[in-house]
């Protein structure tokens, strides 16, 4: 139903049940209109745009739709879902950064297409693609380079997810130290920021990281 028709039928129903009271000249909006329902592109189109099979897309969509019947995820729901996987710590900040990374068109909500696009890069993309995506996640203001402050925010959000009860006891400067480590490794020209090229180059040279890419086998 197009928006116009919906409004039309809404006004009809309002007059019918007399919620419009001419005496007091106010429309009783007892409850807000039902939320906009977003529908993704057809299954075939999504299959073309991504490297997932039909079955995989079906499974993904069902989960998506169950949690967000309206078809889009807003940040609150996103944080809620993510927090269920990390009951000990506080995953809301990291979830916020993730949300920003998934929400490519910056409209405050993640639709199924955004979701599939993101997962496509991470799970079916090349190593360079993944590193690119990770860089995009870290670069909070999307200016093409990661500063120490941005990295510190990201690091703190990851450490927050661990919660209070860790072994060894979490020191306050653990994130900062980790950031220093990171910059030492990644920042080739020591100019205080890490650009995309430095990032990809350093990651490709790092054995640990390359080996860890196996993480994404069999996720879907």
């Amino acid at each position, binding site marked *: *139903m*197009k928006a116009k028709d*919906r409004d039309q039928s809404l006004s009809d129903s309002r007059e*019918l049940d007399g919620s419009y009271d001419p005496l007091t000249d106010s429309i009783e909006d007892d*409850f807000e209109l*039902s939320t906009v*329902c977003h529908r993704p592109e*057809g*299954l075939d189109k999504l299959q073309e745009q991504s490297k997932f099979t039909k*079955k995989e*897309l*079906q*499974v*993904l969509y*069902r*989960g*998506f*739709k169950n949690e967000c*019947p*309206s078809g889009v995820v807003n940040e609150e729901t996103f944080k809620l*879902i*993510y927090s269920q*996987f990390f*009951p*000990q710590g506080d995953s809301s900040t*990291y979830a916020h950064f*993730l949300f920003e*990374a998934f929400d490519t068109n910056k409209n405050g909500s993640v639709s199924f297409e955004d*979701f599939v696009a993101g*997962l496509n890069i*991470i*799970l079916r993309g090349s190593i360079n693609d*993944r590193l690119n995506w*990770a860089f995009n*996640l870290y670069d909070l203001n999307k200016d093409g380079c990661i500063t120490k402050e941005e990295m510190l925010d*990201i*690091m703190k959000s*990851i450490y927050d*997810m*661990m*919660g209070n*009860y*860790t*072994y*060894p006891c*979490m020191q306050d400067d*653990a994130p900062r130290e*980790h950031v220093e*480590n*990171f910059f030492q490794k990644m920042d080739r020209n020591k100019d205080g920021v890490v650009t995309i090229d430095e990032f990809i180059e350093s990651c490709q040279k790092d*054995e*640990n*990281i390359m080996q*860890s890419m*196996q*993480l*994404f086998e*069999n*996720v*879907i």
Partner: protein
Amino acid sequence: MAAGVATWLPFARAAAVGWLPLAKKTMPRPPVDKKSRSDEILFVNVSGQRFQTWKNTLDRYPDTLLGSSEKEFFYNEDTQEYFFDRDPEMFRHILNFYRTGKLHYPRHECIQAFDEELAFYGIIPEIIGDCCMEEYRDRKKENQERLAEDNEAGEGGDAPLPPNSTSREKLWRAFENPHTSTMALVFYYVTGFFIAVSVIANVVETVPCRPIIGTVKDLPCGMKYSLAFFCMDTACVLIFTFEYLMRLFAAPSRCMFARSVMSVIDVVAIMPYYIGLVMPENEDVSGAFVTLRVFRVFRIFKFSRHSAGLRILGYTLKSCASELGFLLFSLTMAIIIFATVMFYAEKGTKGTTFTSIPASFWYTIVTMTTLGYGDMVPNTIAGKIFGSICSLSGVLVIALPVPVIVSNFSRIYHQNQRADKMRAQQKVRLARIRLAKKGCTNAFLQYKDDGGLQDHDSGSTALCVKNRSAFEHQHNHLLHCLEKTTNHEFTDELTYSEVCMTESLGYRTSRSTSLSSHHGSSTTCCPRRAKRRPIRLANSTVSVSRGSMQELDTLHVQKTTVVPQSRSSLNARTEDLKLNCDDRDFTAAIISIPTPPANTPDESLPTSPAFPGILRNSRSTTFNPDTVKISSL
């Protein structure tokens, strides 16, 4: 873990790409999911109940889920049907909408469940037919009100203050919620007592007492014992002033507080006293002064802070303002009409009391409220007729708005009672939620302990681990990745507090006691767990012959990696592992403390602050389970 989010797990695992470049360690291999995802789908099968309908029926509303291409996401080619994992009862109503064009609201269903179903199928609630629309809207409004209340109750002042709140905030809190601290409670009762004393004093001082010896007239007690009453009054006013100033100081927004009703009552209650002090004993102004004393009775309203019922009454009156306004308006109309009529009816009579229309107001009011004092009575026949009409209509006019006010009061009163009950149950709920969260953590720690985190070669995993679902494997793997990223491990509260305590006490003691295990003794850093320890140690004494930290790593590792050196000993160990799986409570806590690495057992104990540093440096060599596996024995 909610079943719904199981399908979001792939997303959460994909999101781990953000940890990858930051991780200090290599990420572990993901678990292999051997089970293929076979879906059992039937034709428009809603949770087992099969529905059949024409395609055209569904196509009637192309902007809903069933009418658009969105349902292809739910189609299964194998069984050639659409499967929805939703409530079949509700689906019946949804399908009827397609068939008849009218959506009905089933009265016995929960309004929220119904709303969720509608949202899922892409149907907006406004299409509900007229027959069911009113019920739907009423129930929805009721539900929303209840939810709003619950939220308020939840955020109510019973939550503990953040630790770094200023003394001002603490003071304000003590005033608003007296039961949070004993001091506040004491103050609450003291002020209540003084309000009562002050009001009683005001009342008693007008009672006539026996006259002073030498005079004849009766004096009010206030005059006779004027000094005593004055002292009592002073004391009360001092307390009230002090309380008011304290509240003013502690209030987060002083302007708003100064304008609030309670603050105005407070000021009005103490003003007369100060004005009386200031004013001289002058005959002219003493009349005005006497009037001011009337305001002292406002002190009784201060009780509304102490009594919830009084507040409810005030709130009810405020919320019934429109009904009260209507009552007043209609009464005024009736009074004016009848007063005019009575005046003109009685005008001719000699010596009548109906001297003017305003004078007749008194008669009308007394008659309409059925009081009937009898100080003014009509004498003419016309007057009597109109007088009777007046009293009959009075009953009607007053009786009409009263039930509305009563029902409002009843509703608000019950809401308030429910809020109190909610608050009491909230604590239980929170405790249970906390327990569930802890259960989840313990599950992960248990999983680690059972050896779930290393490669699942065939036969090398314990049964209890294998029997875990794929979801659990993957979720635990995800948590393990996070551990590797930050180079810290998850532990539970108990272990954490103990480890931190031992760290602060001095590292030496804990280490030496835990090391003494290699002599086969059962002392550990946690003496009360000693009972369990021997079982483990017995199996690993072979490897604990060296006096180095490596052994204890091995000790730890053998419990987790489950891969000793030979296959034969492997079989022998499955007994032990089964043992691991049985005792749930202790093992998770014990085993997850990896003993910190160092090369010699007794000397060069790192001090507490350097502890993490040493851990980090030597982690790469000793703590990585893979390498230890190789190096042990």
